[in-house]
């Protein structure tokens, strides 16, 4: 079943240098799966995620032939309707938790708020649910953490709190924007495990934004490779190693490897045509 359909999504920013076409004709459909968006910095990954939730600044122009979530046309929603969708149906795990949590509200408050804004429940119930959720994301002492402020918890915990906050309203889609880039490897793995468990349990579709091809290869089902605002390749994750687009291959190959050490790493030369030509597999 298609949960989300995106067709020919274009995002244009108005900047001082003129218009910036950051996302060009991006199309994909999301089923009940873990879809990754990869690509180098600035290729438009986050912009796609934000465009779905209409989080881009007001000066941005977002057009698409189709931006369909279930029965709702996201493009035609007014402010109120989109608010009803945000959180409840689609939510987004923001990048760095250190900056994405309100520093003067306790962690717990922020989690229960995510729930109570959509459900008509009492504070007590919201708190209960939040505590429950904290336990779900493997936080040892939820009661304690609940009343802590963001600066009092570590990055890994912050990331988990962020996940808790976004999962608690039980949305249909979670967009996770580089949820682990600020973490070191061991914590990274923990977070990914939790995420997997939750989305499987609650039947959530995931859009996983990352620039780490290695990670994506293991973790996701399908990968969209973006370059310069376009999707240059869409491929099954386990087939990444034999990707056909030179860009994807370039990315894969320039990674230094532990097992197969090479004296010089291959360096990719970018081709102007990638930006314009339709590349078909």
């Amino acid at each position, binding site marked *: 079943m298609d949960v989300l359909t995106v067709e020919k999504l274009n995002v244009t920013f108005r900047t001082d240098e003129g218009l910036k076409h950051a996302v060009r004709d991006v199309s994909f459909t999301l089923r009940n799966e873990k879809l990754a968006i990869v690509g*180098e*910095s600035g290729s438009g990954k986050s912009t796609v995620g934000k465009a779905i939730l209409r989080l881009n600044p007001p000066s941005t122009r977002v057009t698409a032939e189709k931006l369909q979530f279930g029965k709702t046309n996201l493009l035609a929603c007014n402010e109120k309707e989109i608010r009803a969708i945000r959180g409840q149906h689609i939510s987004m795990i923001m990048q760095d938790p250190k900056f994405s949590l309100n520093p003067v509200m306790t962690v717990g408050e922020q989690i229960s708020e995510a729930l109570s804004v959509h459900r008509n429940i009492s504070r007590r119930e919201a708190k209960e649910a939040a505590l429950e959720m904290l336990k779900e994301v493997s936080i040892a002492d939820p009661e304690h953490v609940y009343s802590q402020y963001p600066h009092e918890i570590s*990055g890994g915990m912050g990331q988990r709190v962020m996940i808790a906050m976004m999962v608690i309203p039980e949305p249909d889609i979670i967009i996770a924007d580089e949820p682990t880039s600020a*973490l*070191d*490897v*061991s914590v*990274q*793995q923990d977070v990914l495990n939790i995420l997997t468990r939750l989305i499987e349990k609650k039947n959530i579709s995931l859009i996983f934004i990352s*620039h780490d*091809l*290695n*990670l994506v*290869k*293991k973790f996701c089902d399908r990968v969209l490779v973006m370059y310069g605002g376009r999707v240059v390749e869409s491929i099954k994750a386990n087939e990444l190693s034999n990707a056909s687009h030179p860009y994807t291959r*370039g*990315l894969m190959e*320039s*990674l*230094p*490897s*532990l*097992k197969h*050490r*090479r*004296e*010089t*790493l*291959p*360096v*990719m030369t970018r081709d102007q045509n990638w930006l314009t030509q339709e590349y078909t597999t």
Partner: protein
Amino acid sequence: MISIQSLSFDMPGSTKSKRILNDINISIGKGECFGLVGESGSGKTSILKCLAGQFQGWEGAIAIQGKSLAETSLKERSNTMQMVFQDPYGALHPRHTIRKILNEPLAIKGLSDKSERILKALKDVGLDETFLPRYPHQLSGGQRQRVAIARAIILDPDIILLDEPTSALDVSVQAEILNLLTSLHRRHQLTYLMVSHDLGVIAHLCERVAVMKSGEIVEVVSRDDLVEGNVAHAYTKVLLQHALSRE
């Protein structure tokens, strides 16, 4: 070349001081590439800072080319040791042109034949003179890191400290820089002390690597042992396992 013996460092804090390095022992030979890995906040950068003279008041003994570090001034140190930073965007003064950036160390040292040296350094890092009048914001990240490396080698140091020189860069650019470092190493007989959290990167460049955890070195392993998985400490194992599982 570099010998560090029982180095400890307490960060003087406003309330209480905090021990961030504890009994570090490393010795690096001439022309060697030595790596430092470890979790975030384990004190990798701090070791470099002690070496570079940014942190003062450490305990223990550090000697560079046999000379005790405590007795050399920053100015003397600058002749033998230079540093390349993690962040290519912050390491270059945004309002200096590339010419000025490369000229500065020469001017400080009062060296002559400046333009030749500058051109040579640029050539070493694979750039040409058309870059000279530019400002850093007109360069890409990889080019900036090259300029930073050029600045580090322009004084012909023997040792270069590298603090995560590629972690802010794309994988493709990372490859360029790693290649550059390898070739420089070979050409100039440089000694590298490189910090990274990416085992792949370390293993690519360094012969030996020290693994750090919360201010201590838990073990020092050679590249071959690493690749083969001959590691003792549990933490190293975790690191290795994650790195391998991704490939």
